[in-house]
């Protein structure tokens, strides 16, 4: 049991660190959150730079340890995270890699790696949130295409995406989980309407997507017809595994900045607040160790991060909210000023216990899959 990396891993770290030191100064500044075309261009350019340097596939084919080193070093260096490439790199791409035909892999994977094409996710529906398997968007076979009608919601990056990984119901008579198929839908197809949703933080991070008799070629189906649930679940744990690891590094930096601010504005002398900061220090250090522990486990067992990712996600999402509530305590009245970055971050932190599976659903997963408690029904 140790925390050291191998010589090869340290060489990978050194090479990456060197590359970042030259690549980051050349990167244009991050565009404002509301400027979607600029964000698309920025995230694509960064992915292209990673591709040219040989790092584009790190989320797919590197060992779990190298992936963690990549996340740690890019975050430490202040590099962008996956941004608009999130779905392509962390879900749709791995799904196509695992379940697609050679033709499908050749068509879709290289553009994802190069940053040429942006993907979004059409899973949740107005009446199918935590209970995703109850989704009702219909796909009816018509010749060599499916005709798709329905509505999707919480679709991040829908406004700038080229493709949507779409879950549709292809057999309404079959048991819920067995009548679903996975389709790659071009976002410029006739009948696709995107309506941005405004979040409580004031920004438009996600959208509703309305589908009105959209024709999707049957060749765009990944996996067998009605096997889409299994196809999707193969890689869903990616999101909960190490996808947030870099953010833990960022949270530790925020915490250090909070301590600096508290020392400057005198609130450090408040024993209750100071100890709260101390507790958060324990929390985020331990969360980083938990990521390392899960990575070591994944490496030893050769699998993708399993339910251990749910354990991490549960604690991390709560810790993140506590971090920004504590930031508000450090700021005092300034915490009500939206021009303070921590105020926006505090608002955004409220999504963490909901997105990618609510904490309540994660607790069900943990209780049933790790502890073996009986299913509720």
């Amino acid at each position: 049991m140790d925390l050291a990396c191998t010589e090869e891993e340290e060489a990978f770290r050194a090479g990456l660190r060197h590359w970042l030191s030259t690549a980051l100064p050349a990167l244009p500044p991050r565009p404002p959150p509301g400027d979607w075309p600029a964000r698309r261009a920025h995230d694509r350019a960064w992915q292209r730079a990673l591709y040219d340097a040989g790092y584009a596939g790190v989320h797919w084919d590197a060992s779990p340890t190298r992936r963690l080193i990549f996340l740690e070093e890019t975050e430490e260096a202040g590099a962008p995270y996956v941004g608009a490439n999130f779905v392509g790199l962390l879900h749709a791409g791995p799904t196509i890699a695992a379940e697609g035909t050679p033709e499908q892999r050749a068509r879709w994977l290289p553009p994802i790696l190069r940053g040429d094409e942006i993907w979004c996710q059409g899973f949740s529906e107005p009446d199918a949130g935590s209970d995703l398997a109850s989704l009702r968007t219909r796909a009816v076979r018509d010749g060599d295409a499916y005709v798709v009608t329905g509505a999707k919601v919480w679709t991040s990056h829908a406004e700038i995406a080229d493709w949507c990984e779409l879950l549709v119901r292809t057999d309404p008579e079959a048991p819920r989980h067995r009548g679903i198929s996975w389709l790659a839908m071009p976002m410029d197809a006739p009948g696709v309407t995107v309506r941005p949703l405004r979040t409580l933080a004031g920004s438009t991070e996600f959208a509703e997507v309305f589908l009105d008799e959209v024709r999707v070629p049957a060749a765009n189906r990944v996996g067998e017809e009605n096997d889409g649930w299994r196809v999707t679940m193969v890689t869903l744990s990616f999101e909960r595994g190490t996808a947030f690891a870099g953010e833990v590094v960022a949270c530790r930096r925020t915490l250090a900045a909070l301590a600096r601010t508290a020392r400057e504005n005198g609130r450090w002398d408040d024993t209750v607040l100071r100890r709260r900061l101390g507790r958060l220090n324990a929390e985020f250090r331990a969360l980083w160790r938990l990521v390392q522990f899960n990575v070591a486990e994944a490496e030893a067992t050769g699998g993708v991060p399993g339910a251990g990712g749910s354990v991490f996600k549960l604690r991390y999402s709560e810790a993140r909210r506590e971090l920004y509530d504590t930031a508000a305590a450090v700021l005092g009245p300034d915490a009500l000023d939206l021009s303070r970055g921590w105020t926006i971050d505090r608002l955004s932190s409220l999504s963490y216990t909901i997105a990618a599976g609510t904490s309540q659903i994660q607790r069900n997963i943990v209780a049933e899959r790790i502890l073996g408690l009986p299913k509720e029904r």
Partner: protein
Amino acid sequence: MRFRPTEDQRALRRGVRELLEARCGRDALRARGARIDRALWRELGRAGFFSLRLPEAEGGAGLGLPEAALVFEEAGRVLLPGPLVATHLAAGSVPGAADGTAVVTRVDGGLVPWLEEADVVLGDASGAVPVRSVDPLTPLHRVASGPPGGPEPQAVPPSAVLLTAAEQLGSAGRTLATAVRYAKEREQFGRPIGAFQAVKHLCAGMLVRTELARAAVYAAAVTADPVEIAGAKLLADEAAVQGAGDCLQVHGGMGFTWEAEVHLHLKRAWVRAELGQPAARSEEVLAAAL
């Protein structure tokens, strides 16, 4: 990244678990009460419990803090009584500690556990007065100490804090397992209570706290960094104390009885939370490091 117990370390843990489970059954524990079983203490000594980290030339096993943490986790799991941490740390400096022929305790903050049973007391225990200990399996004395949160006059070394945290981790793992077993067996409304989300989510919370504490304790055992150790203690205290409380809740009325094991875990977790570096002290150490 090899941040998980090696094959040798897992074998060590299995061996210790078998030894302890055979000696620390429920009835044996209760029959001994607040007395130290000298025969068991010597057996622990022979098994290397105290000398584990001494060099082989001095009769030890030449192992490190990670192995010691795994062993103390097992001790915490079965509520093994006695001043285990103090005696372990005294191996090599106090005659008889390494082989289990001596029982060594130390003044820890304002408390001295096992004062009357110990052969050697480290620190100044003059004026110690007996306490009616909340834990029936841990006798306690009180000595004068400074104001809470102030500098601790008789602070314990970081490795003692870490091993106390490891015991807390073992206790948290045990109360989690006990709660889950009961939730699968106990039926109400015609089904196991573990099928209900209200109970399920209590258990899930216990697991999350335990696994976070495990990562913290194991990492602190590897780095031996005092700040990381303070974090491990803080999280292991939380996992043990809240875990025992939730385990009690899952057991319903049975959990409130003397007969059930869970109160012994809760009371011991309270004692350990005060020993080795209480939460307020750990939080200050962690804050100062920011």
